[in-house]
């Protein structure tokens, strides 16, 4: 349990640092603002207690709000993501997945399953976040384009990140 706690904490700190120090400083375009920190929520184990996932999502969002000087936007978007993720996983995981307490990752569920899962979840998160940032629907289609492009880049980064970091671990297991 305590080991679990430190493992979460370490992942949390690493991914937030990666977001704030590296990804936020990549100036690709004003149309592309990737938020890879949601990978932390996406890769939580299938068996994690739902309330705990929500608390983690809240903390994650609050930390991002602090760094990006936005009030509550990341909290709102990340909470929605964590809540819908619970329901999504209920329908798309098998009994064996739950019994072996997997993380929903590429190595366990395959590339196609993961990309689909990550895309839907990221799209929901980015949609809420970007419209809250604009605070209205004045620039509806421009924002929709930003959401789509940012979602693609976020998913790409999360997939590449997994191929880089997680494969080594699973080979050893």
């Amino acid at each position, binding site marked *: 349990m305590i080991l679990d706690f430190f493992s979460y904490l370490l992942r949390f700190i690493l991914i937030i640092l990666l977001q704030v120090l590296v990804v936020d400083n990549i100036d690709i375009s*004003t*149309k592309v603002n990737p938020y890879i920190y949601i990978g932390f929520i996406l890769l939580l184990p299938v068996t994690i207690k739902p309330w705990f996932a929500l608390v983690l999502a809240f903390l994650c969002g609050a930390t991002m709000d602090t760094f990006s000087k936005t009030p509550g936007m990341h909290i*709102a978007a990340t909470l929605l993501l*964590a809540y819908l993720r619970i329901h999504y996983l209920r329908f798309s995981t098998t009994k064996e997945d739950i019994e072996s307490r997997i993380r929903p990752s590429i190595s366990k569920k395959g590339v196609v399953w993961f990309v689909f899962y990550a895309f839907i979840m990221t799209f929901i998160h980015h949609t809420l976040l970007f419209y809250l940032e604009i605070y209205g629907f004045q620039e509806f289609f421009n924002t929709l384009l930003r959401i789509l492009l940012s979602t693609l880049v976020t998913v790409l980064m999360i997939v590449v990140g997994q191929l880089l970091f997680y494969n080594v671990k699973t080979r050893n297991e």
Partner: protein
Amino acid sequence: MRNLIFFIYKYHVFFMFFLLEVLAFVILYRYNNYQKASFLNYTGAIANNFYTGVSNTKDYFNLRRVNDSLQLENARLRTQLLTSYYQNNISLNSINDTVYKQQYTYLTARVVNNSVTKRKNYITLNRGRLHGIEEKMAVISETGVVGIVNHVSDHYCTVLSVLNSDCRISAKLQKNGAFGALMWDGNNPRIAQLKDVNKHVPVRINDMIVTSNFSPIFPEGIPIGKIYYHTLDAGDNFHTIDVEMFTDFTTVSTVYIIKNVFKQEQESLESLLIEERNKK
């Protein structure tokens, strides 16, 4: 009662999600107005200390470029010095100057954090209330306009960058003084838009845009950029103008904060007008 508790227990995940989401939206509604500083003062201190460390490291890599631009600026300022002018008058009497009075004072500051790709970009500077910074002071770089101070804590201030949809700067064409409002449409961090320039005003590519004399924030004539593209649609009363800004927001690292000494006087005078209007 037992049924109620059972009901809440059964759907506790949804209730928890709902409560936390409501909390998030309360924070959002209370603090989204960019004039309300308190949220940033609570959470800002943590982030600012962190970003100071990061920027200390990053500054090393920019030293050469910063030196170059500072040298250029020094050269420009030296040419404006009194000693670089030819003295034409024969008698030199020192008199107490009542004609010229200092109106603007400049303070240097370092960029601690900055973004250019978001829809609402802010810049954090390492100067705050203790250095005499107040809200709505002008911020410029060696090359041109940067933004307006919007929140101040003891040691830091955040600046509403020109690259922010909430930022409007009163500007004019240098050659004929026609004025407009400078805004950013969120697309290209080098290009801003000049609105409200009347259609009878002749504009040409590469015309200089500078700050106007209407604003109590910016001194008159600070360079902003030059016209990059312009059109006039039939039936439109205003030009559509794209301005290429002189300030490169992606690399800006040292800036000046400008204090208008007469600002309070101007504002208290103008507030009399508002009071008068309210009485009528």
